[in-house]
């Protein structure tokens, strides 16, 4: 159970990191949305792994302590946390001399990134939790 959970989180972390990297690179190279000054790729990769590992830990704990309702409760809790985390980019303060147009785009840009680990973690869940 723990082994499966571990590999689930690592796989989801890895795939979401790749997806985030592609998203960041395409927006930077094609649309000139360069936020590398405030959001480095190492930060993004770290956040992907961290959130996927955290999700697996909570999922395992939920199923362990509440075998019947754990999965449902976890999914509700997971959705609430993902949506609540969108406040982060909305309230984030960029450097004051940052480009004004990019400052306006930043919340939308970063909000999309917040969904990558969650979506990939959920996509891989049936594979690791048969």
């Amino acid at each position, binding site marked *: 159970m723990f082994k499966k959970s571990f590999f689930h989180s690592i796989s989801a972390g890895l795939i979401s990191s790749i997806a985030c990297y592609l998203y960041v690179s395409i927006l930077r190279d094609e649309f000139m949305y360069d936020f590398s000054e405030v959001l480095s790729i190492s930060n993004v990769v770290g956040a992907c792994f961290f959130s996927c590992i955290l999700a697996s830990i909570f999922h395992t704990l939920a199923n362990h302590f509440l075998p019947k309702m754990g999965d449902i409760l976890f999914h509700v809790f997971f959705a609430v946390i993902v949506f609540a985390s969108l406040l982060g980019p*909305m*309230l*984030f*303060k*960029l*450097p*004051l*001399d*940052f480009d*004004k147009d990019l*400052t*306006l*785009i*930043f*919340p939308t840009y970063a909000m999309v990134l917040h969904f990558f680990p969650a979506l990939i973690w959920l996509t891989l869940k049936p594979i690791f939790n048969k």
Partner: protein
Amino acid sequence: MKKVIYPALAVVLMLTSAFMSVTNQEWKIKDDYSIKFTSKDLSGIFKEFSGEILFNEKDLASSKFDLEVKVSSISTGNGMMNKKALSKEWFDAAQFSAIKFISSKIEKSDKGYAIIGDLTIKGTKKYTKIPTVYKQNGSEASFTGVFYVKRSVFNLGSASDAVPDVLKVEFSVPVSK
């Protein structure tokens, strides 16, 4: 003839001396200025600033500051807050595009100078004293200082505990001849 020369010379000297008053120095604002506002909650900068500075330490009476800060150049580091700052509730940038300061008097103070004049924000004019430190180095100089703005006086935003009423404004204006 000699009798006429000296009185004539005196008259000429007197007339020319009338035009020899201390000429006031006009300073050009350099690009690396900074206009920053801070409070417990809110902080930011204004990126666009312009104006006319006539300043001579020896002739404060005819020194003058006529300055303008473009409201739309506000940057708080957050896109939503920038937009809100330009809204009717705050600076109402559509109607009042600039913050203006026109000096009426400059006084020498302990630490430098006090530039006194009318500060106009969102159409409200207020007699304001701005303490300034002036440093000159050859053909370059700088004006730096700190003053406080009570936002309720200028009808900026609504009364709330989230944003303090008093904002600290720090400025640094390098100039050159």
